[in-house]
């Protein structure tokens, strides 16, 4: 399979795997879990033909530490899992952040807490954007909303990881992983990893060896290391924020939603327009860094009566929305959990209540 024809029907999980291979990922370590196991299936089939390594690890913890090793050797490497498995990887996330290793991790999220269920959810927003592992660190977090975007953002995730030496987390959900949509294949510009002079690949006796570590016993050195990391995160926050803003100008209500939820909201916007209610959408594509400026700008529009964050959780991203709005306008929340999706009707009712509080027109 050299070049797939334009616009092929692909499952979200397959698109992630194919995109990774086309981005030059030649090392994949994983452990099966619904609803993302098709990624491992695809890698098991494809990796051999491109001269790469597919390995089913003995656990999620082993897989993330194999990622640490391969990334340390300068390889483009990925692991994927779903919520409970991503929880297991959190220690590895922290070590990878400390050692500044570029890698890509995909969470095709399901519902929790605990083993929870296998249906889509967005209950991992806090974990994805605000830590999960110990210490002061950040992962860049991308939130695709279509199979095409899963493909595109997976390719871009590898570039982003290499550019900043960070873990890039793609936060999808079961719906995106399982559904099929057309995918146009973009040929990645830079399929091979850029030069990584810091990688531990052997010195050939010609230079002093590189060290990859996250341990700094000397407090002064560790503080300096932390300041260096924070400066790097600040640079990511300045340069890499991405979001899609639709119809915010003149809107009465601005909805914030990401991933699958944003897709549902798009339909609601059309229905609301039929009733004469203008609704805008801000869809963060990077969950971290969060598009705070776009949200604040939307809240500043005089026409906007309130913002409504719609999520598949009990209210997580809404905290970042409130921080960005900073009291300028009311921020409401609508969420479903347990694998339940909000219906268009229930979102529309929330919008009507904001736009037409008296029930009039």
């Amino acid at each position: 399979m050299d070049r797939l024809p334009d616009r092929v029907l692909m499952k979200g999980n397959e698109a992630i795997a194919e995109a990774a291979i086309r981005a030059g990922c030649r090392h994949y370590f994983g452990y099966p879990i619904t609803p993302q196991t098709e990624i491992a299936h695809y890698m098991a089939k494809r990796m051999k033909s491109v001269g790469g390594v597919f390995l089913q690890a003995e656990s999620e913890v082993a897989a993330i530490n194999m990622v640490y090793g391969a990334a340390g050797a300068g390889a483009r490497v990925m692991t994927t899992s779903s919520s409970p498995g991503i929880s297991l990887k959190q220690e590895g996330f922290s070590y990878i952040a400390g050692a500044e290793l570029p890698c890509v991790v995909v969470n095709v999220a399901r519902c929790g807490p605990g083993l929870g269920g296998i249906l889509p959810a967005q209950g991992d927003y806090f974990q994805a954007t605000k830590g999960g592992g110990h210490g002061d660190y950040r992962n860049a977090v991308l939130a695709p909303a279509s199979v095409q975007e899963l493909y595109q953002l997976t390719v871009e995730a590898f570039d982003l990881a290499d550019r900043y030496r960070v873990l890039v987390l793609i936060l999808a959900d079961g719906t995106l992983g399982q559904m099929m949509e057309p995918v146009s294949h973009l040929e990645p510009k830079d399929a091979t990893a850029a030069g990584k002079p810091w990688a531990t690949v052997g010195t050939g006796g010609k230079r002093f060896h590189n060290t990859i570590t996250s341990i700094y016993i000397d407090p002064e050195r560790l503080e300096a290391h932390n300041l260096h990391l924070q400066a790097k995160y600040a640079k990511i926050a300045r340069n890499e924020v991405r979001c899609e803003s639709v119809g915010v100008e003149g809107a009465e209500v601005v909805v914030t939603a990401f991933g699958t939820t944003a897709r549902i909201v798009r339909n609601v916007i059309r229905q609301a327009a039929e009733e004469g209610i203008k609704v805008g959408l801000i869809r963060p594509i990077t969950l971290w860094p969060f598009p705070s400026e776009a949200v604040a700008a939307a809240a500043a529009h005089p026409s906007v009566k309130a913002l409504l964050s719609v999520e598949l959780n009990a209210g997580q991203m809404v905290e970042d929305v409130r921080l960005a709005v900073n009291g300028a306008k009311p921020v409401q929340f609508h969420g479903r959990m347990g694998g339940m999706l909000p219906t268009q009707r229930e979102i529309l009712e929330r919008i009507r209540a904001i736009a037409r509080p008296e029930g009039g027109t």
Partner: protein
Amino acid sequence: MRPLEVVVSGFGGQGVLSAGRLVAAAGLLEGREVSWLPSYGPEMRGGTANCHVIVSDEPIGSPVLNECDALIALNAPSLEKFESMVRPGGTILIDRTLVPEAPARSDVRLIAIEASAKASEMGNMTYAGVILLGALAQATGGFRRDSFEKALAEILPASKHALIPEEMEAFDLGRTLAGP
């Protein structure tokens, strides 16, 4: 052209997910936007399967349907569960061989075909779904016969391409049985 929003539902193994995928693939071959969303959750593990398919000229918003234009029900539980999703004036297609029950709805068009019995006569039970897809194409005009034939060639493994003429016979039978 108007969008086509379809739910296909039945037992696992009846080819429900593949049937939906064929509709999406046919739509894509006509240059339209498509989405296909399978059930993979607890329902699947209980032995039933369904998928939501959208074919549209516009970019597709939610791949999750709350309402649909047509329902293909290959078993009785599917009819009971999903008939309320069909929009007034929409179409319910059922495999009469397996679904003796009638829908409660009277504001939709009912196309009840002895699909499994006909497929059995043709010697291949998987044709039941194809017969109903022929009826769906006829009733909704949502996708063309030639794109369906090409979609079969894309989705079936090469070892089964010899069956395409028979598959198309089943498709045409469905078109005829759907009536004008």
